[in-house]
């Protein structure tokens, strides 16, 4: 069913690329032999650091910190404060505002004030609790509404406009308005934040960090310590999960460890305790959204006007990009003829919100889907029909839609993809069966929803769309590849190895993957925005091709012929009827004094973004998908169970279908947690009450339905020349879980036809019961 006119004929059947190979570390994972930073041998004399903070105060002026008891604790070697920072006391990834140690002010509950360096982890942690603080407490702003009252924005308001949304809505035959609170999310990577710093020659420091962004660690450590970037090497072999939580949030710990190593001259490890990790590091942004929409009688949207209030926390961190991405996805899959998409980025006295898989996109899309559901429920139409009526036109349509930010959507596969899922999930028959069930079920109610996603691929900060790689071939034909991307479980390393093996036509096992290090590939982007294999795969491919081209010259010279006529297949280089093994070729190249090392550099073509004008083509392409979920709720208690999930997700031409399937399933379940059980609770004083897995509940195996059918959609390939025409798959599947939230809404709505339940996110039992009660006993004046 491939209908892409530009899709190039595939030259040769792919061997390495496209194979469902296991994760490169799978055998080591299951044997407990994959080493994470805390597992590495500690040099004799290794010291341990624990951060210290004030548990009593959320916001206030720091008058005095008495550290005598801390210093006196057995095992303590040093106590570090802002005064010990040699150069710049800031570890922000963007415009500043993230002190390594608080100086005169406490800005949020959990802000680090000092760090204890001790001979053991236990000693450091015990000592860190002994500080005595004198603080002049101030009333904190906790919610977006507190921040609005105080008038504190961390970044300027920003909006997209397409046409005159106000006029379009005013003139529309049907008009609706509502609001929605969307909760944040804790990453809960299983491996907590950790860094291990080793002093080296002179002022050099090697920092091992569990980070998605080694380059940033390198640069920020250098900045804080007043050293040159070249003095610092940051290395990461693997993370025990990242999900965005180690994009900017790994830096502070690496900086503190490096500072302690610099001051003590010894190796220093900092591993955060889980509760400290959850208190001190940022989470997904929570939002308040208010919207107005105008439609025709069938639900076709004529104009949308939406205001997003984002809680950014105490600093800017990555909020500009995150909240911009919310705006970029406030249309999700829908062609709004007119729109105003406005955002406020509010400064609150809470830990700075940060990147989390989807990077703001999920919140924008949840709004769009709720709006569609509300329209459908009010008009008495099936929500899927309203969705379809508003999709961007298909890739082969005569006219393509244009997003509110000016990008032409010319690769939309949703009409076909959704039609296929509608069929395979048996959507219509199940809707009828559910209606019949609900008609005779006073206590339990079922609901079903089929929701689409369209996710823009590329960093919207255009300069980040670059990557470097270093490929070395050794004279025995073995290969190492290194690139800027980091491995956090997503299978990037094996995918890149597959790309390199494909170039050389050798077995993937012959390509050795090595730890990501700033010493080999400099100035890299974070492994984020789902771009890991797109960018690094391309860079590695370019490097490998360069070596292969040099090899072809040598082979042509040896065997007599044209380099162009040399082919690589099955581990051999062939010219005419003669061939050489790959190892022979490598050996011949060294004898011929031809370099077998090359760097590759890739920057994504064809993307433009003018933020001031809010116009351009920020995304190289879009990834699509859809999910159909069915749930049952208990209207007496709000308990809920997911009964069945069907997913069809667009991966272009998959580099590794097994890895992609894992990303889709894992992403979906993570999204499911965000929208159901994962509730972050701050008390009125701004203290996070859910800072441990005992109170913050990510999904367990039970929460995943037994009936879980996931399929890859490869029919469309990728219209643009991405690596082997694959599509990024890291983030988009998170948003497939919106189908669950939507299904819950519909189950509740069955209690009162025509009424839109005020269901918030996450849909905990309490939130579900509140929505049930609201539709059963409507309160005077509440929006219907």
């Amino acid at each position, binding site marked *: 069913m491939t209908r892409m006119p530009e899709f190039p004929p595939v030259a040769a059947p792919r061997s390495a690329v496209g194979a469902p190979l296991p994760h490169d570390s*799978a055998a080591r994972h*299951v044997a407990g032999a994959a080493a994470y930073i805390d597992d590495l041998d500690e040099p004799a004399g290794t010291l341990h650091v624990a951060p210290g903070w004030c548990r009593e105060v959320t916001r206030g002026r720091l008058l005095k910190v008495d550290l005598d008891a801390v210093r006196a604790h057995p095992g303590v070697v040093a106590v570090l404060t802002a005064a010990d920072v040699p150069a710049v006391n800031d570890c922000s990834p963007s415009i500043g505002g993230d002190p390594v140690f608080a100086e005169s002010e406490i800005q949020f509950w959990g802000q680090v004030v000092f760090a204890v360096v001790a001979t053991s982890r236990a000693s450091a942690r015990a000592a860190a609790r002994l500080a005595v603080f004198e603080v002049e407490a101030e009333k904190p702003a906790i919610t977006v509404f507190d921040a609005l009252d105080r008038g504190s924005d961390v970044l300027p308001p920003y909006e997209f406009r397409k046409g005159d949304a106000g006029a379009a809505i005013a003139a529309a035959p049907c008009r609706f308005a509502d609001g929605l609170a969307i909760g944040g999310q804790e990453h809960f990577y299983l491996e907590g934040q950790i860094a291990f710093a080793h002093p080296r020659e002179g002022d050099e420091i090697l920092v091992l960090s569990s980070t998605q962004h080694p380059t940033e660690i390198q640069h920020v450590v250098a900045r804080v310590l007043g050293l040159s970037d070249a003095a610092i090497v940051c290395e990461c072999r693997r993370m025990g*999960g990242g999900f965005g939580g180690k994009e900017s949030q790994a830096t502070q710990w690496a900086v503190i460890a490096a500072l302690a190593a610099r001051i003590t001259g010894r190796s220093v490890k900092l591993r955060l305790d889980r509760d400290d990790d959850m208190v001190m590091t940022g989470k997904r942004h929570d939002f308040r959204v208010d919207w107005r929409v105008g439609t025709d009688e069938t639900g076709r949207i004529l104009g949308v006007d939406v205001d997003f209030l984002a809680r950014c926390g105490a600093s800017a961190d990555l909020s500009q990009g995150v909240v911009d991405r919310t705006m970029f996805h406030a249309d999700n899959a829908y062609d709004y003829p007119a729109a105003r998409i406005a955002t406020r980025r509010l400064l609150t006295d809470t830990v700075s919100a940060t990147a989390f898989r989807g990077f703001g996109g999920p919140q924008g899309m949840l709004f769009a889907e709720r709006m569609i559901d509300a329209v459908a429920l009010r008009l008495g139409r099936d929500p899927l029909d309203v969705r379809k009526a508003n999709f961007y036109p298909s890739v082969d349509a005569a006219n393509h839609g244009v997003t509110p930010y000016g990008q032409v959507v010319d690769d939309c596969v949703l009409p076909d993809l959704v039609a296929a899922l509608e069929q395979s999930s048996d959507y219509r028959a199940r809707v009828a069966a559910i209606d019949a069930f609900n008609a005779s079920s006073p206590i339990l109610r079922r609901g079903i929803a089929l929701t689409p996603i369209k996710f823009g691929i590329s960093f919207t900060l255009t300069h980040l769309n670059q990557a470097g790689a270093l490929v070395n071939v050794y004279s025995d034909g073995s290969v190492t590849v290194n690139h800027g991307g980091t491995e956090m479980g997503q299978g990037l390393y094996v995918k890149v190895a597959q790309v390199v093996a494909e170039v050389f036509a050798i077995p993937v096992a012959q390509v050795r993957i090595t730890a990501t290090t700033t010493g080999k590939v400099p100035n890299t982007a974070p492994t984020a925005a789902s771009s890991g294999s797109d960018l690094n795969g391309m860079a590695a491919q370019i490097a490998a091709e360069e070596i292969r081209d040099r090899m072809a010259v040598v082979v042509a010279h040896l065997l007599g012929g044209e380099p162009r006529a040399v082919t690589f297949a099955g581990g051999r280089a062939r010219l005419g009827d003669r061939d050489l093994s790959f190892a022979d070729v490598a050996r011949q190249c060294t004898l011929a004094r031809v370099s077998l090392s090359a760097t590759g550099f890739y920057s994504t073509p064809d993307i433009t973004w003018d933020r001031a004008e809010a116009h351009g083509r920020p995304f190289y392409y879009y990834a699509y998908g859809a999910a159909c979920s069915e749930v*049952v709720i208990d209207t007496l208690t709000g308990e809920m169970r997911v009964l069945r999930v069907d997913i069809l997700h667009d991966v272009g031409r998959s580099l590794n279908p097994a*890895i992609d399937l894992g990303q889709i399933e894992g992403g979906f379940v993570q999204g499911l947690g965000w929208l159901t059980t994962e509730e972050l609770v701050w008390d009125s004083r701004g203290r996070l009450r859910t800072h441990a*897995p005992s109170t913050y*509940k990510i*999904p*367990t195996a039970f929460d995943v339905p037994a009936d879980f059918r996931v399929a890859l959609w490869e029919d469309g390939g990728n219209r643009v020349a991405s690596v082997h025409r694959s599509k990024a798959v890291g983030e988009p599947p998170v948003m497939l879980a919106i189908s669950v939230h939507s299904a819950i809404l519909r189950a509740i709505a069955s209690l009162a036809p025509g009424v839109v339940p005020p269901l918030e996110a996450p849909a905990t039992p309490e939130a579900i*019961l509140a929505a049930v009660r609201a539709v059963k006993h409507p309160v005077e004046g509440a929006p219907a």
Partner: protein
Amino acid sequence: MTVRRSIRYLSKGRVIEVADFAPTATLLDHLRLERRLVGTKEGCAEGDCGACTVALGRLVDGRLVYEPINACIRLLGTVDGCEVVTIEDLAEGGVLHPLQQAMVRRHASQCGFCTPGIVMSLFTLYATPGRHDRDAVIDRLSGNLCRCTGYRPIVDAALEACDARPDQRPDDLFAAHAAATAVALAGLTDAAAVFVGDETRFFAAPHRLDTLADILEACPDATLVAGATDVGLWITKAGRDLPRIVHLGRIAGLDRIEETAEGLSIGATVSLAAAAERLAAWDPDLAHLFRRIGSVQVRASGTLGGNIANGSPIGDSPPALIALDASLELWGGGTLRQIPLERFFLAYGRQDRRPGEIVTRVVVPRLEAHHAFRAYKIAKRHDQDISSVMAALRLTLDGDRITEARLAFGGMAGTPMRAAGAEAALVGASLRSAGGWRPALDALRGDFTPLTDMRASADYRMEAAVGLLGRALAEIAGTPSHKTRVFGLREEVGHDAHA
């Protein structure tokens, strides 16, 4: 009396003896920091993520049994006499265990950090005789969080390895060595009191009540520890120094369940898992409730005595046991006394336990034919979550008429508590029509003034409690549970508890 000044455990067929350790040392720190066995991970240090799972082998009635435990909160001293199996032990001569192979084949790891713990949990299932279906696998994974995979491939791998017919399930190293292991474990069993340390800092594990009495007389402020699923967190999370630890797990007889004329007499150190196995047979709701207490790991270590003695208002067994009219046996200073369980809970944080006294047994009257029993737990997440509301009730019926009602709730007050008003409203009421029980629902609102916390608001707790009472009455009046609940169907439970 013989005193042993070390603990001993079995590791890869070798006896490891440890004579010098802090009373609060955890098994995880011992493995990772002392023995440098770093395959076992720390994800939370509070028993909730399962990354630290190791298998504990013990002889139960002469049979070798493997159970998963959370090494992060398990005190090192309490593994005395057991076999400790860690992830490093599974592969044999470089060949992965069948379960590990299935995990690789099914792409069941991504970041890999949860993986060793998951493999160890599933290993204990593999080592359990019989076939294990999906429900059994899901239950076995209830204490293992994975943030990457979405679990589907893990469940598939587990089914591939554990759902095979026993004759098609290859014997692993452990099955092959079971007889030798049993002999070695028997060799570690002795009638000695364990005492490691000195009077100021020690880990003690007396083997008899009188020895315990002596220790408690000398050190009245010593900390009693059974499974340490609470106490472990005081150490790892609250950072408390507990210099004197007295472990109850070795005391002879306290770990036995006895069948009596009235029902069961359950020793205080009987694990939640072992208690569950017996109580589950009485009613599917008991099976489902106990299956939802913590995880397999927590239930393997945690004891029924500890679940009561900790006095928590949100412990799950007390409301169920109170509804069953259980009593508590306490022993101290040479005397035994028995009190109705509900009277043990005096107020938040205060129990009727005298200095030097310990809980020794829980006596639970059997459910009779004229009883109707229900128990429900409400939490944000189905598995391994603390209840926001727990309800348990036992009605005594005379035909359609309720002659006695025992309704006990958790999470609604400072202690597990009966709903006096609702009970009174139910006595004499008829089940025939909902009108007959409506007054009880209203009365329930007057019985409690719950609190708001991070688990639920006061308002929700009250609404849910009323909803649960309504559900129970509707069910007892005849509505099948598939029309009243989204999980824990009475028709289904039992088979997953016994898988």
